[in-house]
């Protein structure tokens, strides 16, 4: 999808105007010519206030997420692909099969129509890849200066076709913690494109939809106790949240957490800890010890799990803390971070 084949008259309206969110003719034109064309087909009954769906199961997973990333485009992805994959992944973490997404845009007046078209294209591509359909949406435009280009909200529905209950309270002492690949790529890719912290790197965001790799685990009969996708706050935050929710201690071996050399170096330069850096295509799974080897193999056989490995275990310590065995073999507590990591000089 490029501007040559964009059905919306970009030359006539090179920038998004307030009127495009106003509910009138211009908005109709934007929805019909750009959005519906991209995400179509238009339902036979026409576009209404809500879309009625028939679901093939009565246990559904429902989630919502908003995306405010800046810059809008970064190596390995953009706000569009993030908006799809982020919500698909939230659904996948309950073992749900994602089906439908809603798409809400809050666009800043003045955003280039070409940029919007690019983002729409990216959303379409990501949705197709993940096997989901965009079925409803909303568009608002805010005054220039009151937005960051564009904010996107996606909500998603998925169906639960398995009999597992994948929640932190299902975690047991002795459970093995697996991860599907190396950490920190997304955060570093974003950092590398921001002004004043420029450096040359080939690192790309790991932004990806995890529903397929998760379904491989479920289909193989792995008794997954819990899963979490790693986003803001990184691996450390996800582990701490789960430890709290499960009221169990977790032990991680720092040397077994995979980090690509360039990510480690970028973190060293900035004074970041990779354990806290954002990801968008990584998840951890808590599985019974007896099934760990089998689960690991399944992950490693999938394109999104080639770097998969075992990083830790659930201890029988009732204190909900995450303990890290450091590179030199000494133990320390791996805490939640407060606020965002800021580049250090010390």
């Amino acid at each position, binding site marked *: 999808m490029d501007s040559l084949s964009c059905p919306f008259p970009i030359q006539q309206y090179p920038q998004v105007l307030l009127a495009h969110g106003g509910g009138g003719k211009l908005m109709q034109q934007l929805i019909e010519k750009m959005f519906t064309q991209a995400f179509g087909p238009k339902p036979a009954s026409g576009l209404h206030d809500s879309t009625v769906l028939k679901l093939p199961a009565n246990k559904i997973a429902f989630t919502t997420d908003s995306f405010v990333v800046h810059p809008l485009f970064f190596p390995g992805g953009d706000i569009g692909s993030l908006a799809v994959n982020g919500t698909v992944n939230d659904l996948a973490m309950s073992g749900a099969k994602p089906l439908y997404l809603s798409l809400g845009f809050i666009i800043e007046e003045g955003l280039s129509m070409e940029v919007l078209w690019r983002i729409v294209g990216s959303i379409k591509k990501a949705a197709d890849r993940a096997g989901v359909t965009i079925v409803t949406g909303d568009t608002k435009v805010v005054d220039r200066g009151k937005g960051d280009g564009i904010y996107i909200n996606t909500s998603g529905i998925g169906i639960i076709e398995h009999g597992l209950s994948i929640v932190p309270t299902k975690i047991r002492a002795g459970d093995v913690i697996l991860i599907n690949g190396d950490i920190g790529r997304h955060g570093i890719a974003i950092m590398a494109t921001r002004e004043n912290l*420029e*450096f*040359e*790197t*080939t690192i790309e965001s790991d932004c990806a939809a995890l529903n397929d790799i998760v379904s491989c685990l479920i289909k193989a009969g792995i008794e997954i106790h819990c899963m979490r996708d790693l986003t803001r706050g990184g691996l450390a935050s996800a582990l701490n949240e789960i430890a709290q929710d499960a009221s169990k201690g977790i032990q991680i071996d720092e040397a077994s957490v995979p980090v690509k*050399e*360039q990510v*480690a*170096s*970028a973190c*060293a*330069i900035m*004074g970041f800890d990779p354990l806290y850096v954002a990801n968008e295509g990584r998840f951890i799974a808590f599985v019974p010890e007896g099934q760990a080897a089998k689960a690991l193999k399944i992950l490693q056989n999938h394109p999104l799990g080639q770097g998969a490995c075992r990083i830790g275990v659930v201890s029988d310590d009732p204190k909900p803390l995450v303990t890290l065995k450091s590179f030199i073999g000494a133990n320390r507590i791996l805490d939640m971070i407060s606020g965002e990591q800021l580049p*250090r*000089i*010390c």
Partner: protein
Amino acid sequence: MCLAIPGKIESIVGSKEDVLNIKGRVNFGGILKEVSLAYVPEAKVGDYVIVHVGFALSLVDQEEALKVFDYLKQMGELEELHN
């Protein structure tokens, strides 16, 4: 107060006549960044430098760098003897 990282100089731009503006492209484990070499004008391509907030502050003495390991190796051998 000293977050300074070692990196390898891949190329140098500038001349000794204008020392304060000598810059190097330094490779930190795969990440490339432009660094001022104003304070290490004697640095050559292939040298390792310690970099803090965009400035190389010293050359890594590669011989000295190995001494820690020689020392530890000796200690290790002594330990084995005692055991």
